[in-house]
C-alpha cells in the first residue's frame, strides 16, 4: 500500500495552483485570487477556533485592518507591495493585541459574541470613517509594484501569483506554529484549559499569543485582498463574511488547517461560481451544502482522510466545543 506523503501532495497542489494563470481566463483567475485571500482569512479563524478552541467571529476586523492599511499605504505612501504587506500585518497584529488582551479573558459563547462585536464595530467604523472612504469604500488604489522603481503589476495572472505567495507563506507559518511548543500549548487550551493551568501554565498568555498571531495572518490576508481587488469596501467586513468564514472552518474540519482551506474554497465556489449557472440560488446551494455536510461529514472534510493511529483527528467535533459561562 503506497503512502501518499503530505508534502508531496502539497507540492503537486502548489504547482497546479501556480499554473492556473496559464489555463484560466482573467475572471476565473481573479476569483481564484479572491478564494485564496478568503482561505487565508479562514486559516486565521482555524488557528483560533480549531487549534486553540476559541470560536471567533471577529477575524474579519483584522482582515479589514490589513486591507484598508494596504489600500491607504498604496494611495498615500508607496505602491511597493512588500511594504503594504508588512504594514498591514503589523497593524493588524497590534490591533489584535489591544482587543485580544480584553477578549481572551472570556471563553465559549461569550468569547464568540465579544468577537462578533469586534467584527461588527470594525465594519461600522469602516462604513463611517470618511478618511477611508466611508460607505463608498476605498477606491483609487494604485497597482502594486514588487521592487522599488519596478513596473506596476496590472495583469490578473501576476497579482494572482502574489496572492498565492502570501497565502502559501501564511499557511506555512500557521503549520509551523501548529507543530511548535506554542501550538501544543494552544491545543492544551482547547482540550482541557484547567488542566493546562494545573501544570503551571498561564493560559491567558497562550491565548493572547494565539490571538495576535491569528490577527497577523488575517491582516496579511486583507492586504492580499486589496492587491487583487484594488478596492476595499465596508461590505467586505460584513457579518455574513465572518459567519461563512467560521462555517468554512467547521465544514473543512476545525484544527486541521488544510481542511478549512478546502472548506473555504468550496464555500466560495458554491456561492459565487456554481450560482453563475443557477442564478440567484447561491445562498440556497450554500445552505444545502452546510446541512448535508453536518450529517455526511461528521468530522468535516479533513475527517475524510483515513485515520492513522498516530495522527490526532481534527478537534473532536462531536464534543461541545464551547461552554456557557455561569
Amino acid at each position, binding site marked *: 500500500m503506497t503512502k501518499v506523503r503530505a508534502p508531496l501532495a502539497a507540492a503537486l497542489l502548489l504547482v497546479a495552483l501556480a499554473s492556473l494563470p496559464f489555463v484560466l481566463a482573467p475572471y476565473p483567475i481573479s476569483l481564484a485570487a479572491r478564494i485564496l485571500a478568503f482561505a487565508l482569512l479562514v486559516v486565521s479563524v482555524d488557528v483560533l477556533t480549531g487549534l486553540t478552541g476559541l470560536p471567533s467571529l471577529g477575524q474579519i476586523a483584522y482582515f479589514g485592518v490589513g486591507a484598508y492599511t494596504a489600500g491607504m499605504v498604496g494611495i498615500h505612501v508607496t505602491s511597493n507591495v512588500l511594504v503594504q504587506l508588512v504594514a498591514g500585518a503589523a497593524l493588524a497584529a497590534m490591533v489584535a493585541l489591544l482587543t485580544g488582551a480584553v477578549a481572551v479573558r472570556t471563553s465559549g459563547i461569550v468569547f464568540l459574541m465579544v468577537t462578533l462585536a469586534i467584527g461588527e464595530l470594525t465594519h461600522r467604523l469602516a462604513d463611517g470613517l470618511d478618511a477611508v472612504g466611508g460607505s463608498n469604500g476605498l477606491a483609487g488604489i494604485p497597482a502594486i509594484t514588487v521592487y522599488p522603481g519596478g513596473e506596476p503589476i496590472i495583469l490578473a495572472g501576476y497579482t494572482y501569483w502574489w496572492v498565492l505567495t502570501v497565502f502559501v507563506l501564511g499557511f506555512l507559518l500557521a503549520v*509551523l*506554529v501548529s*507543530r*511548535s*511548543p*506554542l*501550538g*501544543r*500549548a494552544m*491545543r*492544551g487550551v*482547547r*482540550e*482541557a484549559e*484547567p*488542566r*493546562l*493551568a*494545573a*501544570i*503551571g*501554565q*498561564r493560559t491567558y*498568555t*497562550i491565548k493572547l*499569543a494565539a490571538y495576535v*498571531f491569528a490577527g497577523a495572518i488575517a491582516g496579511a490576508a486583507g492586504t492580499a485582498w486589496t492587491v487583487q481587488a484594488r478596492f476595499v469596501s465596508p461590505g467586505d467586513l460584513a457579518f455574513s463574511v465572518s459567519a461563512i468564514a467560521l462555517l468554512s472552518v467547521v465544514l473543512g474540519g476545525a484544527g486541521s488547517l488544510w481542511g478549512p482551506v478546502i472548506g473555504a474554497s468550496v464555500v466560495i465556489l458554491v456561492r459565487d461560481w456554481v450560482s453563475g449557472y443557477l442564478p440567484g440560488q447561491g445562498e440556497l446551494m450554500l445552505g444545502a451544502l452546510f446541512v448535508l455536510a453536518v450529517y455526511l461529514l461528521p468530522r468535516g472534510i479533513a475527517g475524510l482522510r483515513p485515520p492513522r*493511529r*498516530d495522527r*490526532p*483527528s481534527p*478537534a*473532536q467535533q462531536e464534543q461541545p466545543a464551547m461552554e456557557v459561562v455561569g
Partner: protein
Amino acid sequence: MSLRTHHANDDLLVVENLTLRYGALTAVDDVSLRIASGARHALIGPNGAGKSSFFSMLGGATSPTSGRIVFGGEDIVSHDEVQRARAGLVRTYQHSSLFTGLSVLDNVRIAVERVSGHPLRPWPSRADRRITSAAEEHLAHVGLVDRRDQLVSSLSHGERRQLEVALVLACEPRLVLFDEPTAGMSAAETHRFAELVESLPRAVTTVIVEHDLDVVFRLADRISVLAAGRLIAEGSPEHVKADPVVNEAYLGDSNDREPLFLDTPADVRTAR
C-alpha cells in the same frame, strides 16, 4: 511511629487552622496538619468528611474562609493554581483531567515543555527532541511508553490514571496531591497503581486521599483522619487502625461491632 525525628524545618507543607464555610455549612473545620518532606501521607475519612474540599483548598481551586497554608516556607493561600504548580505543588483529579484529543506523548510533552522548555516558542526546533525524550522517560516510568502515539481516548481508565501520574511527574513536583486515584479501578489496576506510587522517588512528597484502605495502609507512613470536617485522628497506620474514635466515625457506634480494620496479613505489607 515514625523513626525519623520531626524537625519543623523538614515540613514541606504546613496547614494551620484551615476552615471552609458555606454560609451555615462548615465543610472543613479548623484543620491543622504538617507534612514532612519525603512523606507518604494519606487522608481518609467517611463520605462527606470534607476531604475533597480540603484538597481543593490545598490545590488552589477553592479559597479557604480562614487559615494558613505554608508550602516550602512560603504562604501560598493567596496563590492561584498556576502559581502553586510552578512552586511545585501539583494535584491529580478525581475525574481524570487529561488532554483527551491529544496523543499520550503530547500530554506529557506539554508538561515537560512548561517546566524545562519554551512553551511560547512558535516554531519547532532541534531542542524539541530533548523534550520528547524526557517525556518518553516519564511515560516509561509509568509503563505507557509503547502507547505514546495513541490518543488518550483509546486508553482504559487505569491507563489514563497512569498517564495522569506521568503528566504530574513531568512537572517536577515537590509535592503531589492524589485525589482518590484508585476510584473506579479494578484490583489489578489498583495494584499496579500502588506499585507506581511506591516507586516514586522520596524527593516527591505525596499526599493521597483514598477510600481504598488497603491502598492507604500499603502506601502511607502517616495517616490523617477527617470526619465531619474535623481532624479526629492522626498517626501511623497501626495507631489509626486501633483508634476507637476512628472506628466510631466510620461505623457510627463502637459497641458490639466488629473492628473496622482487620489485621492485614504481614506478607501483604510491603517492606520500606
